[in-house]
């Protein structure tokens, strides 16, 4: 059905920027480092952004959540840029000044970033308290657009292709939601395989500053327990009709039958049936795994597939989530983090159900001391095993160990994990109230970097020292029949020695964040790639053979004949 793919030189681009990238950051790396580590390069740039949740003794329920991140190449210059969402003045729920504005940073390619928010039209003065952000090319014009979640009005920004964005929320029909709905996260994906990206939004509850509950002990306010005062609400699904129009299909898709207190969203074809499914981590409620039935409807099978609760069937404070194949068995697994005293959840996909493997993975030993928010599978050392990063910090500032550092749990052969945070460098170990995080290769050196927000602080842009000599391959997939971002495309890579690795295109990551859409593979010591199989969302299967490592490959989808 599909023509044999031919890699023309135009489709096989070795990124020259990668060489430059190694040079800019090479001086920061310690040659003695046993493992790659991370260095914060944010202070090199003039950045005014802080994740401003309007912290005050009067504690509003929304304040622990602030600082969503998107890593995207908004101007298609080959270098990943960064977008941050921001909070608002409370109880006014307005961006009353520049300290609450959202922020777009343009990657100059020399280790510094330029704030181009105003020029891009993304300050968001007319918006309110913003939370998550989803980056995706919803109109397949080759430029990445932005959807921003809010306590009030959600917003869709169309990328005009000239460095500016236009708020098209009103005409798109994507802004509708019940009044007072607190939208936390969003993810682009093509649920009906029509080649157009649809949007899922995770909602938490109905909340306004006017309905906010106040809780206090001995006269000191603290953030109220969501179980006591806030009810779950349905997440929303918007179907892309084309020509910039969307239809709210929450009711007819079945999403309305699975309410929750939505936090992280993870997109993958968990059943490997060609249809993209949706996992939503719900805080203090059963997690949802909305299985795509292929007819425009979804069914929440979280319980029957074994991911709704932990091993004891108890709902925990699920925060961020990610879905990747951590054990390289060809099936996409699920991870979520939660709060101190609980155990982070890792669920191994067995094909017909999921197995709760947190104890086997050693998370009961590793995670109990941390309150995790955003997170993500990241093969930070390019050994071919996806490790787990988590952005940590307690909900409130009351407990003595509320300020926490991030963690990196290294994946040991797809079985267990070990905490290597202490070797990740001083900047990685910054303590605070970390919230959003996204993963991407900011300097195009083949090693994944991190961007992290912390409440009332500037963000960190953590560059991977990339100094362990491991090899890698990064694929930039371009859909031509499928959605242009190729979200949902599955990649199977076989190395020269026959080792098989899996990944898929999915940008929604962790909590309120959106990662680099390129597909990254760490190859360990191997330089040769025997084959790559790409299964495109609309069914095409493409084979590439005999490739060498340490390069960026741009691969276009073959059109059906």
């Amino acid at each position: 059905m599909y023509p044999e793919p031919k890699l023309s030189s135009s489709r096989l681009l070795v990124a020259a920027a990668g060489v430059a990238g190694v040079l800019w950051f090479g001086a920061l790396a310690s040659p003695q480092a046993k493992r790659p580590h991370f260095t914060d390069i944010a202070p090199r740039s003039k950045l005014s952004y802080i994740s401003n949740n309007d912290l005050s003794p009067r504690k509003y329920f929304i304040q622990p959540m602030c600082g969503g991140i998107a890593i995207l190449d908004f101007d298609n210059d080959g270098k990943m840029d960064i977008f941050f969402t921001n909070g608002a003045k409370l109880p006014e729920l307005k961006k009353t000044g520049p300290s609450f504005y959202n922020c777009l940073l343009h990657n100059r390619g020399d280790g510094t970033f330029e704030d181009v928010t105003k020029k891009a039209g993304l300050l968001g003065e007319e918006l309110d308290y913003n939370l998550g952000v989803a980056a995706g090319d919803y109109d397949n014009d080759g430029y990445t657009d932005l959807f921003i979640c809010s306590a009030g009005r959600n917003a869709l920004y169309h990328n005009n292709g000239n460095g500016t964005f236009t708020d098209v929320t009103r005409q798109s029909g994507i802004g509708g939601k019940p009044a007072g709905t607190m939208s936390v996260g969003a993810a682009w994906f093509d649920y009906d395989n029509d080649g157009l990206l649809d949007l899922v939004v995770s909602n938490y509850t109905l909340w306004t500053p006017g309905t906010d509950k106040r809780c206090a002990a001995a006269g000191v306010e603290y953030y109220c327990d969501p179980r006591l005062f806030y009810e779950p609400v349905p997440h929303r699904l918007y179907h892309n009709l084309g020509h910039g129009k969307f239809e709210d299909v929450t009711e007819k898709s079945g999403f309305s039958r699975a309410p929750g207190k939505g936090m992280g969203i993870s997109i993958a074809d968990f059943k490997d049936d060609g249809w993209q499914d949706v996992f939503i981590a719900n805080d203090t409620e059963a997690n949802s795994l909305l299985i795509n039935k292929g007819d425009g409807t979804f069914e929440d099978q979280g319980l029957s597939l074994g991911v709704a609760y932990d091993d004891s069937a108890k709902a925990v404070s699920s925060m961020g989530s990610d879905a990747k194949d951590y054990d390289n068995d060809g099936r996409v697994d699920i991870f979520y983090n939660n709060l101190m005293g609980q155990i982070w959840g890792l669920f191994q996909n067995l094909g017909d159900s999921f197995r709760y493997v947190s104890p086997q993975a050693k998370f009961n030993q590793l995670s109990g001391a941390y309150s995790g928010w955003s997170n993500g599978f990241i093969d930070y050392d390019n050994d071919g095993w996806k490790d787990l990063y988590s952005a940590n910090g307690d909900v409130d500032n009351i407990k003595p160990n509320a300020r926490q550092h991030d963690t990196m749990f290294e994946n040991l052969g797809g079985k267990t994990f070990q905490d290597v945070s202490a070797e990740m460098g001083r900047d990685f170990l910054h303590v605070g109230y970390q919230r959003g995080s996204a993963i991407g290769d900011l300097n195009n050196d083949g090693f994944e970097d991190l961007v992290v927000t912390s409440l009332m602080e500037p963000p960190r842009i953590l560059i991977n020292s990339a100094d362990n000599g491991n090899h890698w391959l990064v694929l930039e997939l371009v859909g031509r029949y499928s959605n242009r971002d190729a979200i949902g495309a599955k990649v199977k890579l076989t190395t020269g020695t026959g080792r098989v690795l899996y990944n898929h295109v999915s940008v929604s990551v962790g909590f309120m964040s959106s990662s680099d859409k390129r597909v990254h593979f760490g190859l360990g010591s191997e330089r040769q790639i025997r084959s790559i199989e790409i299964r495109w969302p609309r069914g095409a299967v493409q084979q590439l053979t005999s490739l060498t490592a340490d390069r960026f490959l741009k691969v276009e989808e073959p059109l059906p004949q």
Partner: protein
Amino acid sequence: MHRTAAFVFLVCAGLRADAPQAAAVARGVELALQGHCAEAMPLLDQAMRDAGNSVDAKRKAAFAGVRCSMTLNKQSDAMSFIAWLQEAYPKDPEVLFLAVHVFSDLSLRNSQELLDTAPDSPLVIQLNAENFEKQGDLAKAIAEYRILLQRQPDKPGIHFRIGGLIMDQPATATSSEEARKEFEQELKLNPQNAAAEYYLGELARHGDKLPEAIKHFSSAIALYPEFAEAHAGLGRSLLDSGKTADSVTPLETAAKLAPENPAVHFALATAYQRLGRKQDAAREFALQKRTAEKINRNTKTLHKNVSGAETVKQ
């Protein structure tokens, strides 16, 4: 006032005020309310023995009897009244609440008695350890149990307690191994300890050592065939080992013994599903949903009722 109270009691108990049995019960309760327990106790005892009294009348007599028994420090009488109440009203919150107080008070009284009678006894050390355990100071409890082991190295049950406490603490890189050693030591002293075998099974299962887990769970079941958690552990280990058909019997047994455990229903549903038994799987998934939702509903209610949250006026 007391006459009124007795009248209300009689009406509530459905007794005629002029019936001699009813009058005796009412008098016993009235005396108990007045604090005349020595006089009340014979009447209350008689009220419990008299077949003509209604269950409700006996309930009131039993409540009064418990209080008077405790006042008079007649512990076995208190136990008898409580036993009757628990038999007649097994899920009654008031009975459960009363039982908590009685047993807690009896525990304190007997602890004090033990301290007064045998201050040098190793049992005092054990009691001390158990008190630390109740207070949630697990590190001190472990330390106290180890002191006890210095005096009585062959005492059964202590290694088991230490192992359990290690598992109750936040896990560390070495805690599983430390707990495993304690349970193994316990089994050397007491090979009949099914719970130690069970915990060894759980440790092995969490370490993905499934054949070892299966061995320990099987041993636990051999020692105690009604051990629901051990059947569940065996079934889940077999299921995770790919021995789906073998997992069904232990999981069915576990579901029968512990019908409110959603994890068991989920595992059994998964096993049925893999074996193509769709209807059985659907039934178990429904049970999983019902039991899981019940647990989480109860947890929410509990948090709402006892959170201690002070809501500030808007």
